[in-house]
C-alpha cells in the first residue's frame, strides 16, 4: 500500500457505521463485515480513502454498515459502478461487495469483463448458493439437485457456475476463496486482495441460515488448499481443476498489467493537430 495514505490507525470497529445489520441471526455476512473492518484497520486505510460498492441482495446491504464511502447500486451493476468510480478516482481503495445472485447471474457479464480489464478493484462475493432476498431461489452456484426452492422443487438441474475457473479464464490476476467460519483466514485474504494491484476476486463461502440451513455443515467440509498459490495461469488451472469448491486460501496471484485510464490526455491538442494535418 502507498505509505502516504497511512495516518493515525483506527480500530476495526471504528470502520463500522451505527446502523445495525438487518441480516438474519447466524448469517455468514456478519463475519465478512467484521473481517473487512479488521482488514481495513490492519491496512490503516483512512475511511475517506475507502469506497464500498454493492449491487442488490442481502450481502449488498454491506456498504450501509461501514463508515466509509458507500454506494448501493442496482441489481447486478456493482462492478460497473465500481469501474466508473475507480476510473475517476484512482486514489480510492475500491471494494465491491455482493452475492452470488447479483454477481454471477444478472451481473455475470460485468464479472467477466472486470476480470479481463484488471482494474485495481477488490471484489468480495459472499456466496451462499441461494437468492436470499427474494426468499430462497437457486442461484448460479446452487447444486443442480438442491430441491428446497419453491421455484425449482426438483432442483435447478443446471450445472453450477464455477467462479474461480471463470475468473481465471476471464483473466483475473488474483483469485482466492475464504470462509465466513474462518474469520482470521478471511481477514488475511481480504488484506491480500486489497494489497494486490489489479482485479482481486475473493469468493467467500458465507452460509445462509434461513434458506440453506444445511450449510452449517460447511464448517466440517472446508479444508485448506494444498501447496503454494499458483503464480501463473497454467498452474492455477491445475489447482482449480483439482478443487472441490470447499478448499480455502489464495488460489492464484500474478502481477498482470493493471488497466487505469489516464487523467491526462496522451497527446496535446497541438500534437494531434499536427498528426492530422495533410
Amino acid at each position, binding site marked *: 500500500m502507498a505509505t502516504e495514505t497511512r495516518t493515525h490507525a483506527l480500530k476495526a470497529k471504528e470502520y463500522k457505521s451505527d446502523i445495525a445489520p438487518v441480516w438474519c441471526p447466524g448469517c455468514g455476512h456478519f463475519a465478512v463485515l467484521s473481517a473487512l473492518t479488521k482488514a481495513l484497520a490492519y491496512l490503516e486505510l483512512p475511511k*475517506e480513502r475507502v469506497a464500498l460498492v454493492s449491487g*442488490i441482495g442481502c450481502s449488498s446491504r454491506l456498504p450501509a454498515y461501514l463508515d466509509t464511502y458507500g454506494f*448501493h447500486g*442496482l*441489481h*447486478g451493476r456493482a462492478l460497473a459502478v465500481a469501474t466508473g468510480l475507480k476510473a475517476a478516482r484512482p486514489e480510492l481503495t475500491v471494494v465491491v461487495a455482493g452475492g452470488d445472485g447479483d454477481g454471477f*447471474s*444478472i451481473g*455475470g457479464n460485468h464479472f467477466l469483463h472486470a476480470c479481463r480489464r484488471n482494474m485495481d478493484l477488490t471484489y468480495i462475493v459472499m456466496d451462499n448458493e441461494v*437468492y436470499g*432476498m*427474494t*426468499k430462497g*431461489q*437457486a442461484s*448460479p452456484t446452487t447444486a443442480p439437485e438442491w430441491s428446497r426452492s*419453491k*421455484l*425449482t*422443487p*426438483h432442483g*435447478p438441474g443446471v450445472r453450477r457456475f464455477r467462479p474461480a475457473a471463470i475468473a481465471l479464464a476471464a483473466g483475473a490476476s488474483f483469485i482466492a476463496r475464504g470462509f465466513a467460519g474462518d474469520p482470521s483466514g478471511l481477514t488475511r485474504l481480504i488484506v491480500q486482495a486489497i494489497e494486490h494491484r489489479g482485479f482481486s476476486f475473493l469468493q467467500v463461502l458465507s452460509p445462509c441460515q434461513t434458506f440453506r440451513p444445511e450449510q452449517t455443515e460447511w464448517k466440517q467440509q472446508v479444508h485448506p488448499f494444498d501447496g503454494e498459490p499458483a503464480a501463473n495461469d497454467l498452474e492455477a488451472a491445475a489447482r482449480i481443476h483439482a478443487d472441490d469448491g470447499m478448499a480455502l486460501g489464495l488460489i492464484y496471484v500474478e502481477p498482470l498489467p493493471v488497466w487505469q485510464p489516464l487523467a491526462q490526455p496522451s497527446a496535446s491538442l497541438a500534437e494531434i493537430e499536427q498528426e492530422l494535418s495533410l
Partner: protein
Amino acid sequence: MRRVLLTGNAAAAWGARLARVDYVPAFPITPQTEIIEALARWIDAGEMAARLVTLESEHSMITAAGAAAATGVRVFSATSSQGLLYGMEMLYTVAGWRVPWVLVNVSRGLSAPITLEPDHNDVLAARDSGFLQIHCAGCQEVLDSVLLAYRLAEDARVRLPVIVNLDGFYLSFTREPVSIPEPAEVDALLPPFDPQGLAFRAGAPLSQAVAVLGGGPYSYFRYQVQLAAQNALAVYDEIAADFAERFGRSHPAVEAYQCDDAEVVLVMMGSFATKARAAVDRLRDAGRPVGLLRPRLLRPFPAAACRRHLLGKRALAVIDQNLSPGQGGVLATELAAALYGRPGAPLLASFIGGLGGRDIPPEELFEIARVTEAAAERGETPPPRLLYTEAELRELRKLQTIAAVERDRRGPAP
C-alpha cells in the same frame, strides 16, 4: 366456479393456469415472486401442463418468452419495476416480432432512490414499446384481465403482447375474495392458441426477426404495430362484452363511476382508484356532484371512451401515480391530448401522488375535489401539484438535520 381468498399475485397465477399456458420463463423479483412460485408448485404437482424455466435475468426472461411465443406456444411471465426496465429493449423487440403473450407487471417504484413500494413509472416506461397495457384495481380483475389479455393478444386483428398491471403490496399481497372460473368456462372464452403464421414446421423453415435497411420498411413495420394497437380498442370491447356475458363481470376499457351527472370527475388508474371510489361516495353523501373515471386500458388509449364520459363536465382532477420529470403526470398528458380542441372539454387539474407507495388518504381526495371545483369556478387551471403534507416534510427535514449534523461532525471532504 368457487370463491376463495386470493392475493393479487395468486390471482395472476390463476389467470395463467386457467389460460393453460405452455411455457413460463421466470426470474424472481419482489413483489412478484409469489406468482412464479405458485406456477412452479402447480407444474410440479401435475396440475398444470407447462414448462417453467428459470433464467439469469429479466432481460433473458423476456427474450425467451418472445422466442417461445414465436414458435406458436402460449407464454406467460411476470416481473416488476427494475426487472421490467432491465428487459426494456426486449419489450420493444418482442412487440415488433408481433408475438402474442402476456406479461404481468407488479408495479413498484423505480430507483433511485431504490424502493419496494408501488407507483406506475415502471409500467409507464413500457408505454411506447408496442405492448398493450391493462391496469387492474382489484384481485378479481387481475385474474379476469389475464384471460382477457390472452384473447386480446392472440386476436388475428391484434397479434401483440399485453402487459397486465397490478400494484405491488396494495394488490400483490392483499387477499380479496376471488371467483375462480371453471376450466371449461375459460376454455370456451379462450380457445387454444391459434399460432397462425407463428410456427416451426419441418419442411417449411422460416427466418424471423430479420433486419431492415432504410426508413421505408422500418416505418412500415412500426406503423403496423400502431394499426394493430388501434384495432385492439374495438377488439377489446368485443372481448369484454363476451366476458361479461359469460361470467357476469364487466371490465370495460374505461370504468366510469357516478360520472353521468358529475360536474367534477377524478381520473385515476390502478388500485388507488378504489380509494377515490370511496371518496366519491362520501362526497356524494355531502351533495357534491363528483364522479370517478378509471381507464383500464392505457395502450391502446381509449380516448373516444374518455371523451364520451368527460366532454361537458366542468373539471377533471387527474391523479397520477407517476412522474415524468419536466412534464408532470403521464395520465394528465394523455387525457389532455384526448380532449384538446374538443367542444365541451373540461378544465384539467393535475395532481401527482402515491409515488413509491405513499398513501393518498380520503382527506386529500376531498381536498383535490375542492381545489378542482374552485378552479372550475374561477375558470383557471391550477398548476400541477404534488400530494405531500407538511407533516411529511417536517419528518424529512428532521432526517436532513440529522444528516447535516453528521456531515459537519466529519468536517469538509479531504
